[in-house]
């Protein structure tokens, strides 16, 4: 293995002289970033060491500029939008998610959706809308905040009049009230569980469709704030371990509610920047756990949110050229380790592709490529220019133009009045 690594080294130096900036993973100091187990082996350290080994082998073949496999991903997505194998039976209660993951991936790749397909998606999502408001995982299922979030996002990506018209705003408001709890939190569905995802789903759809009433989010920001823990990140409910997915949901929800400044931004910033893995370049979801491509969005996506929050606080020392994470390293991880050669992206080498990871790996890649906004924009594209993705909005995770367009459309309509009194969820099983 010594002569192999020398060969790799020589080869890479030869070819790198030609190529643009050398990859971080081929630099001399990269191997010093391997995990040190201090001679004390535990389950955690064994898993981490194995993970590093897998990744080392992935990196070896890449002597040339990393390439986003656009064609392959496009075909994978195009097919999935119509047909899915029976392996997807486990997502039969999440079909609006499948629409969103695929449509968002296509919009990042700047691949257009034919009008007929767009219309079919609208009609399908209309069938997923519950008569009592909100969207469900499939026709005839109960409404649930997660597919509601996904459906609204998918419709906003489509952005046609037909798409906007699918949403019954009055009933959606009723649904949100029906899952609202006295302590400010939301259950995911009537008779369902509480966690911080629900606040994000509710805030996202309510803000996009302009149905926020004076009382809808009473107490919500305080409940979300109580999810920030000793680590600086947020857990799913107060008391739980800080976790990337929940931290993103809580922070993005607070941004929507205009209350992000109430977080301890300093400890949150320290926590999230510490989640980038020094060897792999990707992000872990929790301290001492393994890297996963999906955290490329949930974790890295926090940096734009925090940048903005700190700026609003009057911070004059923020970078004017970059988010506060290693953008190149993340792009390297995604392009070298998270692509399936047949199309689709994934968690880490050795895992199977799926549409969830395709969506969030690409979203993370976009975050890493684009700094700033439409006025002040700095692009850092690793590899060939063709790797460039469309920018994504760090709060909603759909393209910024689609956010603006949806907001403009729905703000021309009046905020509905809550029509039904909501049953207490204590009565619900």
């Amino acid at each position, binding site marked *: 293995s010594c002569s192999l690594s020398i060969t790799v080294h020589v080869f890479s130096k030869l070819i790198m002289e030609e190529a643009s900036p050398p990859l971080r993973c081929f630099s001399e100091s990269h191997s010093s970033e391997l995990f040190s187990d201090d001679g004390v082996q535990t389950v955690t350290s064994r898993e981490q060491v194995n993970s590093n080994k897998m990744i080392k082998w992935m990196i070896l073949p890449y002597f040339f500029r990393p390439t986003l496999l656009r064609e392959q991903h496009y075909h994978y997505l195009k097919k999935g939008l119509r047909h899915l194998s029976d392996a997807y039976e486990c997502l039969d209660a999440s079909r609006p998610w499948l629409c969103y993951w695929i449509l968002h991936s296509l919009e990042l790749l700047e691949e257009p959706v034919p009008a007929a397909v767009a219309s*079919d998606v609208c009609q399908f999502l209309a069938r997923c809308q519950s008569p009592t408001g909100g969207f469900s995982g499939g026709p*005839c299922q109960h409404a649930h905040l997660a597919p509601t979030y996904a459906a609204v996002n998918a419709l906003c990506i489509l952005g046609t009049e037909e798409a906007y018209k699918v949403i019954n705003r009055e009933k959606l408001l009723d649904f949100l009230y029906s899952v609202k709890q006295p302590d400010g939190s939301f259950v995911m569905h009537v008779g369902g569980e509480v966690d911080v995802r629900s606040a994000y789903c509710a805030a996202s759809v309510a803000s996009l469709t302009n149905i926020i009433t004076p009382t809808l989010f009473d107490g919500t920001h305080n409940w979300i704030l109580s999810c920030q823990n000793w*680590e600086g990140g947020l857990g799913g409910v107060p008391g*739980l371990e800080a976790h990337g997915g929940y931290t993103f949901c809580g922070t993005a929800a607070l941004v929507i509610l205009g209350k992000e400044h109430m977080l301890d931004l300093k400890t949150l910033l320290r926590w999230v920047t510490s989640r980038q893995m020094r060897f792999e370049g990707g992000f872990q979801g929790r301290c*001492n756990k393994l890297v996963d491509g999906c955290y490329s969005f949930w974790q890295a996506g926090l940096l734009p949110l925090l940048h903005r929050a700190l700026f609003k606080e009057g911070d004059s020392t*923020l970078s004017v050229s970059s988010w506060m994470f290693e953008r190149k390293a993340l792009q390297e991880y995604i392009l070298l380790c998270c692509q399936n050669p047949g199309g689709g992206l994934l968690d880490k080498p050795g895992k199977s592709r799926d549409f969830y990871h395709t969506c969030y790996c690409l979203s993370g890649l976009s975050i890493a490529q684009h700094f700033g906004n439409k006025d002040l924009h700095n692009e850092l594209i690793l590899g060939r220019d063709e790797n460039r993705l469309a920018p994504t909005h760090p709060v909603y995770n759909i393209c910024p133009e689609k956010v603006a367009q949806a907001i403009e459309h729905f703000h021309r309509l009046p905020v509905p009045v809550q029509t039904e009194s909501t049953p207490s969820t204590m009565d619900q099983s």
Partner: protein
Amino acid sequence: MPYQFYKLLFNVLVFYFRDRKEWADLEPVPQDDGPNPVVKIAYSEKFTDVFDMFRALLQNDEKSERAFALTTEAIDLNAANYTVWHYRRVLLQALDKDLREEMKYITAIIEDQPKNYQVWHHRRMVVEWLNDPSEELQFVAEILSQDAKNYHAWQHRQWVMQEYKLWDGELEYVEELLEEDVRNNSAWNQRHFVINHTSGYSDSSILDREVQYTLKQIKKAPHNESAWNYLNGILQDGGLSSFPGLLEQVTELQDTCSSPYLTAFLVDLYEDALETNSSSYDQQEMFNKALELCKFLAEEKDTIRREYWNYVSRSLQNTYGSGDPVSASSDPPPPPSSSQLPDMEPSDP
């Protein structure tokens, strides 16, 4: 034999609900995906059969034993279908089913699929109805013995403990887990959870004990980030620089237990000394050392976080420095406007 073959064989052997005489009165309801479906799943015959029948039951709001039996089949095919779980709970109550039996059932399902939201929520509901948490801590411990970081398991455990005030023995349990794997961040979090809800950290003998415990774990595995984070976390309120002798203890560790985490901790400590304008420390020395370590981290020891450490450095200089405004680059500063902000809110207030 290949999986596809087994599936085919199994589907041929299955006795579909639509063909059973006890179900003859109920017309199955096919899923209405519309004329041009999207994200259309190639359901197996069995899946279609069960869910067509489920839709029929739901439509008729049928509350019967056969409906209950069908929910078991449906769950087996897709345990994430929350509509089915909800219906099952309605039936459990309407038919006055034996909840002890249901506990056995949900125990088996969770063992099989421990990373599913619905199964844990269902268990919580049954425990609430029975008002009996007596099996819970042992059950969760069993699940954690297979995956010590299962987030749902920890969530359930914390709920049980808070709801039924079952705090006894938990600190001991946490210590066992940390003995097994000192890097288990979930266990460190649980430690914080227990102490927070029992003694709290304001008592100096508790805080002392925790600091010493943590330093001991750090010495065992200096590159264990969890321990360093815990040390930082418990000292935030009081202030890192206010804890007597801590700077000395940590500085001592530098020879044998050096790590980027130790260095980062020193930065935090120096920063706290500056923030509190502590008279126990030479402010200028704190400032210089903090900047020196930020540079060391950014350029050598923690380069993946280069942007962050440079930001900390600039912030320190801006707040405590001698006076020249610090900017993030040698480029002229951008025009003063909100143009640096990613467009976020629907409309600025």
